[in-house]
């Protein structure tokens, strides 16, 4: 019964009986057809029938798509647009890649020391091995007993200076970063380096970093260029201009012609030339914009878009889309300025960050592109790169305020935030909220919820952490509380 009704509904709309039946058999009804993708429908009916179907149902958007595709693929002189196109087509790599060898090989002397270390089962970090090798340079006869003696002496000193096990490094790190935090200002200054860009600094920035915010309030990129271009001011300027995002309303006047139900665009010659844009580029970008349905015509030096929409409101909406059409540049990059470093090279600083689109640009030195958007780094370059960025940004923020914090504390914080493979905030939405102890979470924030839920389920708290042991009054499992004593009869005691 229902099937017949659905078929009739389609027939009433002007679709042939055969096509209607085929569609309903395929599981479609009038509602579903309005949103069904074109290529899925063609599984059930022929392409021509599908087109007729859509026309009859009045589904405009397919028409808009088709008109764009039907036109011949235009030539894009603009390098950014060219690259944008290639990226859209390629989801897979076009060229194979090799794994770079980033591990530094030890020098001969270092290797000598390392071999001895292995023999003596001594562990020393590479910086000390290098230092030792440095001192051994120039020594005429280096014998194995000599190195052995050196190693033992160095190891003794190293052990003396090593941190004790069960040291409460977490709380020490928190204090070491928190205390200077009280000395930081709440205000943000202008970025000392580049006069035109202002970046969040001080306490607000540190809070952003530690909270693992998706988008910093002032995202910024630092882009170096390939060595052959980097000293050429004009070339660098050109690239900077091509990166800045330009929308239609930046270079043209867009008006609604209500009487004729159309949108008239008057390009501004001067603005267009400063952005290196041609009339054709404007046209092509408009055609690329899939959300604009309707016909586009050129009348002299203006572009006219006639819309099939009937209401004024819909026309307004279309005008907004037209105004905001991206003509040139990289998404989210609002401004690009140039600065010359004291090495002589020119560097581009951008307001706004888009790592993914920048990295594939041919003229830039992709290996050195830097952004302050940590979550973006994690998504594009991986968690290890994000960890390094975390350390760099936190250090920078503290140093700018004149505060010195040992890097190890910052490294610990970064390690904790990047431990799970993505960047987690410190607060209750991240690490602190993931603790297994109910009491610890209850003591941190939103007390009643945690306790109530745990009580209802019947959860168990194993009292293995710090906060919960304090609550119940037992010795904490850190520092002295981690020591396990036993009786040592005289024979077992070592001198």
């Amino acid at each position, binding site marked *: 019964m229902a099937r017949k009704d659905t078929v009739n509904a389609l027939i009433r709309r002007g679709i042939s009986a055969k096509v209607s039946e085929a569609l309903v058999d395929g599981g479609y009804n009038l509602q579903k057809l309005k949103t069904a993708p074109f290529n899925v429908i063609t599984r059930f009916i022929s392409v021509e029938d599908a087109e007729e179907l859509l026309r009859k149902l009045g589904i405009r958007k397919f028409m808009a798509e088709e008109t764009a595709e039907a036109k011949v693929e235009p030539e894009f002189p603009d390098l950014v647009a060219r690259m944008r196109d290639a990226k859209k087509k390629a989801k897979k790599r076009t060229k194979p890649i090799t794994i770079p060898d980033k591990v530094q090989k030890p020098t001969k002397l270092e290797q000598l020391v390392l071999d001895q270390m292995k023999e003596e089962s001594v562990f020393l970090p590479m910086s000390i091995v290098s230092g030792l090798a440095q001192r051994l340079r120039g020594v005429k006869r280096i014998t194995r007993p000599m190195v052995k003696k050196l190693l033992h002496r160095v190891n003794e000193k190293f052990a003396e200076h090593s941190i*004790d096990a069960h040291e409460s490094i977490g709380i020490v790190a928190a204090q070491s970063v928190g205390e200077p935090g009280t000395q930081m200002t709440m205000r943000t200054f202008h970025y000392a380096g580049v006069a035109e860009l202002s970046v969040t600094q001080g306490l607000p920035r540190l809070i952003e970093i530690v909270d693992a915010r998706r988008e910093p309030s002032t995202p910024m990129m630092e882009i170096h260029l390939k060595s052959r271009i980097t000293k050429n001011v004009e070339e660098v300027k050109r690239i900077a201009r091509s990166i800045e995002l330009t929308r239609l309303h930046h270079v043209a006047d867009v008006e609604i012609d209500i009487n004729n139900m159309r949108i008239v665009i008057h390009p501004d010659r001067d603005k267009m030339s400063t952005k290196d844009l041609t009339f054709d580029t404007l046209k092509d970008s408009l055609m690329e914009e899939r959300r604009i349905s309707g016909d586009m015509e050129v009348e002299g030096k203006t572009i006219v878009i006639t819309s099939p929409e009937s209401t004024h409101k819909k026309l307004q909406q279309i005008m907004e889309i037209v105004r905001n059409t991206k003509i040139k540049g990289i998404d989210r990059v609002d401004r690009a300025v140039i600065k010359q470093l004291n090495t002589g090279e020119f560097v581009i600083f951008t307001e706004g960050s888009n790592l993914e689109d920048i990295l594939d640009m041919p003229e830039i030195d992709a290996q050195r592109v830097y952004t302050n958007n940590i979550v973006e780094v994690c998504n594009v370059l991986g968690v290890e790169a994000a960890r390094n960025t975390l350390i760099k940004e936190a250090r920078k923020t503290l140093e700018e305020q004149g505060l010195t914090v040992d890097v190890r504390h910052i490294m610990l914080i970064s390690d904790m935030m990047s431990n799970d493979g993505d960047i987690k905030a410190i607060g209750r939405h991240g690490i602190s909220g993931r603790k297994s102890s109910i009491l610890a979470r209850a003591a941190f924030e939103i007390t009643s919820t945690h306790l109530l839920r745990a009580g209802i389920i019947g959860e168990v708290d194993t009292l293995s952490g710090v906060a919960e042991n304090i609550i119940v009054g037992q010795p904490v499992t850190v520092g*002295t509380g981690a*020591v*396990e004593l*036993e*009786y040592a009869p005289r024979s077992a005691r070592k001198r």
Partner: protein
Amino acid sequence: MKYTRFEKARIIGARALQISMGAPVLVDASDKIIDPVEIATTEYDEKVIPITVHRRTGAA
């Protein structure tokens, strides 16, 4: 064994508690020092305390 500062503190503390509760003192200094902690510390320095630390490797 080279003790960490936590281990040292724990050992001296435990020994001081024992001394304070009347345990025989293992070092000869009864007229000079009377504070249990001081006595325990002296015992520790003389390496005569029969307490050691069991260190666990691996998971808790």
